[in-house]
């Protein structure tokens, strides 16, 4: 008898609380790890303002894409844009939320941040393993006056699949024919040389610990870990420093409206001050969501982030989307997203 009473008490307890839990709006998202700090910052501020809760799980772009395809989350996030075909097949819409830059970093004795200049082809040949020593003639020719040691270069790349790798290899693929033939680009590739570190932290740690290394990390990690970055030559033959300005320069020239699926790739863009290894990070939503209220809540949150998230993005070393771009995206929301026949966004 006692047991029955306890069970009944438990049941009423659960039943009593369930409606309360449901009443609080909760948006679920999953995907890329790169924008996680940004999304959680936005979500925190948005929650303080509106009481809407967002739960973002940074399980990786692959997982995010799978979950939004299965509609188990309200939005997915990916660093690499999906192809138009993939988007159409699964009835998805993607749009950029922020821009970031990937920065080659080195650990060579006596060389300080910004001292070393590299071109795209030389960087590709280092990652191909054809340039083996730091004092190789091709590096020396670009850097007269820099004392380069006669040491073997240790190449560090990501061991896990990653949007950072996608952006970096996409750049190498564009500037080097040999790289294009041998490795190509993707979130993970068949690396011709080097050691793999797990995550941006892993690569940063390897570059810090091992002498004569070169690696690539997101800009924020290069800053936080005080790593030595290099200057890269862009399309217009200028050597530029990585900075929020040089990343936004890459976004300004891009043709968002005319690119199908908004799958704009920001590597190796035109422009005098453009950092050549930039990329956008994307949010993916369903064009025919099942939960209309949540779909609307997601778009409201993203709209608020476009409007008010710029300063927060900059403080975390991301580049916010220019107003001209976010306007294009919001028009696409209105045109393409339908929930039980009615447009979700007006």
């Amino acid at each position, binding site marked *: 008898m006692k047991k029955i009473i306890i069970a009944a008490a438990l049941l009423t307890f659960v039943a009593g609380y369930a409606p309360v839990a449901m009443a609080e709006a909760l948006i679920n998202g999953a995907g890329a790890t790169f924008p996680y700090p940004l999304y959680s910052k936005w979500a925190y501020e948005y929650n303080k303002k509106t009481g809407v809760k967002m739960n973002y799980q940074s*399980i*990786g*772009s*692959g*997982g995010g*894409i*799978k979950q939004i395809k299965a509609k188990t989350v309200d939005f997915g996030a990916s660093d690499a844009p999906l192809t138009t075909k993939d988007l159409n097949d699964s009835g998805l819409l993607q749009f950029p939320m922020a821009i970031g830059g990937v920065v080659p970093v080195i650990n060579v004795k006596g060389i300080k941040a910004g001292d070393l200049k590299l071109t795209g082809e030389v960087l590709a040949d280092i990652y191909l393993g054809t340039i083996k020593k730091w004092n190789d003639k091709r590096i020396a020719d670009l850097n007269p006056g820099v004392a380069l040691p006669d040491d*073997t270069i*240790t190449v560090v790349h990501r*061991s*896990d*699949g*990653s949007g950072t790798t996608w952006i970096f290899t996409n750049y190498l693929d564009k500037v080097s024919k040999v790289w294009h033939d041998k*490795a*190509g*680009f*993707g*979130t*993970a*590739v*068949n*690396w011709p040389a*080097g*050691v*793999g*570190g*797990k995550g941006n932290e*892993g690569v940063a*740690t*390897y570059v810090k*610990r*091992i002498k004569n290394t070169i690696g690539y990390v997101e800009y924020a990690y290069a800053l936080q870990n005080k790593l030595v970055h290099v200057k890269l030559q862009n399309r217009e033959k200028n050597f530029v420093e990585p900075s929020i300005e040089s990343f936004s320069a890459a976004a300004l020239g891009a043709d968002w409206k005319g690119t199908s699926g908004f799958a704009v790739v920001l590597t190796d863009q035109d422009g005098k001050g453009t950092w050549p290894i930039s990329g956008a990070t994307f949010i993916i939503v369903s064009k025919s969501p099942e939960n209309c209220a949540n779909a609307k809540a997601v778009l409201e949150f993203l709209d608020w982030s476009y409007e008010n998230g710029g300063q927060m993005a900059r403080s975390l070393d991301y580049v916010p989307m220019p107003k001209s771009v976010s306007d294009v995206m919001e028009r696409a929301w209105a045109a393409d997203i339908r929930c039980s026949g009615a447009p979700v966004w007006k």
Partner: protein
Amino acid sequence: MKNVIDRHKADKLGDSLFKGVSFFFAVSVIALMILIFAVLVKESWLSLKAFGFGFVYSSAWDPVAGDFGALPAIYGTIVSSIIAIVIAVPVSFGIAIFLTEMAPAWLRGPIGTAIELLASIPSIIYGMWGLFILAPILSEYVEPPLVEYLGFLPLFSGAPLGIGMLPAGFILAIMIIPFISSVTRDVIRMVPSILKESGYGVGATKWEVIWKIVIPFAKSGIIGAVILGLGRALGETMAVTFLIGNSHDISMNLLDPATSISATLANEFTEAVEDIYLSSLVELGLILFVITFVVLALAKLLIARFSYDGGRR
């Protein structure tokens, strides 16, 4: 009297009920294993069909082209575990024999507890410690002399990065020493003291008692302990991922970066979008399942043989 009969009747029902329930639990273990195997086969079917048996001996790993092979991962898994066993077994034996046969009584408790504590540290901690502390030590003080004095061997000809097959073997050794030594200690402790005493009684030295009486008696248990350690080394993930260097290459050189099955899974599962990529990763898991199964089966056979010998003597 009637009361007793009633009780027995009730017990009979309870007994058969209990038997049924415990039988169900026991069988569910086997069912679970078969289910896991079935799911692994089902999920890796795409890659099994695409690459066939060639998957096992192909060393391709090209996510862009969708061409995969398991050989580098299998090689790394087995070689790093062998390195770990080669280092860990003598050390663990030393610890176990010291604790049971030589240590003063007041020292046994603290050392034994310390070993058990080591065994309970999560592997991610070993990984971080390995990356931040062990790797720099290896690359500064251990690997350069290896290259200098043993560099003529193909095993030690590379650059001393502090990250690669050998460091991964090192961290695995440190991780499995607590397992091997504590089980070995318990096994040795179970050697009847009457055997040892008779050894001393006929004038045997401590060395002779240990090697001719204790070790032969405990042989099968000791082998079991080593296999337990090997099993953990084969499947260990995070610590290896941090230290092995994660490169899909096969190199004789133990200082070079390599990869293992579990490290590959930990690294690449989250971002594997294409079906064939995911399927190949699951097939790697299937291969690890089979390797572990074979190792355990061999161990059972070995133990059976040795204990038979021990019984006859």
